[in-house]
């Protein structure tokens, strides 16, 4: 009793001097939720000496604005496009082939970046924006344009949402994807106007009308892709110069005016706060927290970083009851597992293939609303395929032990390369139960062996249904 009391006093004294160091579980949770659903022992070790707040700061400050993987070489230049019509059959076929290859190369490039980045949180945010400002490369066609959009997501990963919205809107990928390029005075195409309100800023049915869509579509008329020099061009001849009324304001607006008008709505910050809550904390909305976080976005003039900090500092995010409540996306399951096991796939195509089969083909979301996420990730089909992926990944470390090190590339289908599980197993030796705490966010479901240094323990942990949640 006395010992406990003294301990309490000691803690209070130390605590008042500086905040407590982060616990193992908190560190793992913070890294897994901000990254790809797992945390490696090295990542955890790095933030263990820090206080919780300092750990959050280190993740936010570690955000990169440029990818480290070199830009893929694009064989097809969108600027060649005007000549496509005049190509003969064989040349057209060749052109299409190069385009296809570019698109693949771009997908593999991003997968490599996700696997190797020192800041998984950055790529998590890029993926978040990709699913917010959706475009499908199968419609955009040119890898270069999709790459530019992806770079914009990274540039403003937790930065200025106004700039992000504007730059994405006038980027060729979005102009093509939402037919803004076909929007013309007298015959407006409403696709872009609708999605700006419904998906990018206010949320479906929140504070705008069909009339706002029709009127703002007129304001966006004349936006075009500049095929001669790349990028955006405003074609005044196609622009509707008459007065429009959007969200209660009237004037001779152009598209950028309308975006400014939309951004004046407080609802935009609430919509963002709600979406980020859903992404990082819980599928259960928390209206009072959304309002608080939205206010932080407004107070910082759409700079998102302070709000992201408040989000990760919130009770909702930190509370132990908030563990394992989110289902890992296919990208998280694949990238997170490969990062955790230290596997370096010789071919990114294999990773992409698994992600696609699990329902997440990066750069090619199913439609303009993007991946639905949550329980929609798990169907009867994907249940099975998730298991197949994990078995394939586990092979990468099982084979290693069998072949006693060396490059075990000889036999069998070396899907994801191989890695030595010894460093993981050593930690289990000094701390029985370590692997369970490292690999799972919650207690396992099946009745199996989960403690011990044998490779089977790692396999049981990866294949337990509890590994599907983060």
């Amino acid at each position, binding site marked *: 009793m006395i010992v406990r009391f003294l301990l309490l006093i000691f803690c209070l004294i130390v605590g008042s001097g500086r905040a407590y160091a982060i616990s193992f579980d908190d560190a793992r949770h913070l890294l897994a939720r901000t990254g790809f659903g797992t945390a490696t022992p090295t990542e955890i070790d790095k933030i263990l000496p820090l206080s919780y707040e300092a750990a959050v700061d280190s993740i936010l400050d570690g955000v990169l604005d440029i990818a480290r993987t070199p830009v893929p070489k694009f064989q097809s230049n969108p600027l060649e496009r005007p000549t496509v019509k005049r190509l003969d059959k064989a040349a057209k076929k060749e052109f299409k082939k190069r385009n296809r290859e570019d698109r693949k190369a771009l997908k593999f490039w991003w997968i490599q970046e996700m696997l190797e980045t020192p800041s998984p949180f950055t790529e998590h945010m890029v993926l978040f924006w990709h699913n917010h400002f959706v475009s499908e490369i199968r419609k955009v066609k040119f890898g270069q344009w999709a790459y530019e959009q992806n770079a914009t997501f990274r540039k403003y990963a937790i930065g200025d949402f106004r700039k992000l919205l504007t730059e994405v809107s006038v980027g060729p990928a979005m102009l093509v994807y939402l037919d803004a390029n*076909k929007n013309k005075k007298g015959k407006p195409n409403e696709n872009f106007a609708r999605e700006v309100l419904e998906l990018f800023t206010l949320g479906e*049915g929140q504070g705008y009308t*069909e009339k706002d869509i029709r009127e703002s579509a007129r304001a966006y008329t004349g936006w075009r892709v500049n095929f001669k020099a790349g990028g955006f061009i405003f074609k005044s001849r196609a622009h509707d110069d008459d007065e429009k009324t959007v969200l209660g304001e009237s004037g001779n607006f152009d598209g950028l005016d309308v975006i400014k008008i939309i951004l004046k709505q407080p609802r935009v910050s609430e919509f963002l706060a709600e979406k980020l809550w859903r992404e990082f904390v819980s599928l259960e909305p928390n209206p009072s927290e959304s309002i608080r976080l939205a206010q932080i976005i407004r107070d910082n003039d759409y700079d998102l970083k302070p709000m992201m900090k408040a989000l990760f500092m919130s009770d909702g995010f930190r509370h132990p009851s908030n563990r*394992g*409540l989110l289902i890992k996306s296919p990208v998280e399951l694949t990238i997170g597992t490969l990062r955790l096991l230290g596997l370096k796939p010789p071919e990114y195509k294999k990773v992409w293939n698994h992600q696609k089969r699990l329902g997440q083909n990066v750069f090619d979301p199913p439609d303009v609303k993007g991946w*639905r996420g949550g329980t929609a990730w798990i169907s*009867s089909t994907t249940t*099975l395929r998730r298991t197949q992926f994990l078995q394939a990944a586990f092979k990468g470390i099982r084979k290693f032990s069998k072949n006693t090190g060396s490059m075990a590339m000889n036999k069998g289908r070396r899907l994801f390369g191989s890695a030595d599980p010894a460093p993981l197993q050593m930690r289990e030796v000094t701390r029985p139960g370590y692997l369970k705490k490292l690999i799972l966010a919650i207690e396992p*479901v099946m009745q199996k062996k989960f403690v011990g240094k044998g490779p089977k323990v790692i396999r049981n942990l990866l294949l337990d249904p509890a590994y599907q949640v983060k």
Partner: protein
Amino acid sequence: MMNRRDFLKYSFAAPALVGTGVQLLPFPVHASTGNWDRTLILLELKGGNDGLNTVVPFADKTYYDMRPTIAIPRDKVLKHSEKLGFHPAFSPLMPLWEAKQMAVILGVGYRNPNLSHFRGIDIWNSASDADQYLENGWITQLFRESKPNAEFAADGINLGHNSVGPLEGDKTKVVTLNKNPEKFLKQAGRIKPGNSQTGNSALSHILKQRRDLKSAADKMIAKQIRTVKLGLAFSDSKIGAQFETAARLLVAGVKTPVLKLTIKKFDTHAGQEPLHTELLTEIATSISTFAKVMKAKGLWDKVTVMSYSEFGRRPFENNSSGSDHGTAAPHFMFGGKVKGGFYGEQPPLDDLDGVNLKYRVHFREIYASVAREWWGLNAGFIKEKPLGLFL
């Protein structure tokens, strides 16, 4: 037509028919008196099908004025009344139309239509009003009210790649089969479902999927669907493959009340032709083959194919030789028990709601027909009356 037993069922099932206005208690759930040997085949036309270019008002000059580049030329239309005809791609379906096994419900929609793809399909899937948000799909609601037989492999089998739509909801057992169902089932049979109960909704969803998958797989494996001989080849398209799998399952004797199929790409904002023609051709040839197989196997009276889509498209074409999101559209029913012909009314082009068509038939009237006339279920949650679509 209606025997005594049916009449009793309806008098419970549809208070509106009795005319008392008194809300009777729902029909006893455990009785499960439904026609559970019948299968509904849901055919989702994803993206919003252009109704005016599917069932064409060829006699209306306004139609051609509104659509200078995308209208179906008068001489190409398959004419079936003085005013209406079908897109030429529907010619493989004409034998079914003439045999009165194809019903066309005109002007299907609802009040205050929502023109968003996502909200639009949610409304159709959940049978909600435009301003009402429901978690469960309409089939899920129906099956919670009247529980399907326990021996079903699943409450629904999804053969398309999209959401399970009307089967949405954690209480419904749904499995998704795709390209290679045999291989899939073999692997699924090996899965070990976790049995433990949990308060974690994400985890409990995962565990439920594993259990449903295992039980459905075990039941389907026993039926040996690969060995089934269909006698006819299906069209080489994604929807053709889905109809082929549907036929295999049914012929093999796999028991399920619902099969869901999806055909995508109907969001024809730009360059509508020839894409729209291709899509309608794929549908028509697949359904035609499917009907022939079902007839040959004596199953045509046990199946109904029902089309639906999140909305129709704008009567006026846009500047990109395409059509923007619209409202009411025609929908279709095919089957041996379907009472063929036109239902509802073609929405006139000179009496629009703003720029869009006014609906004539509420989509829930179709659901009411399926629930009450096809399955013989109560469907107390649907206020609308059935249309009399079935023999």
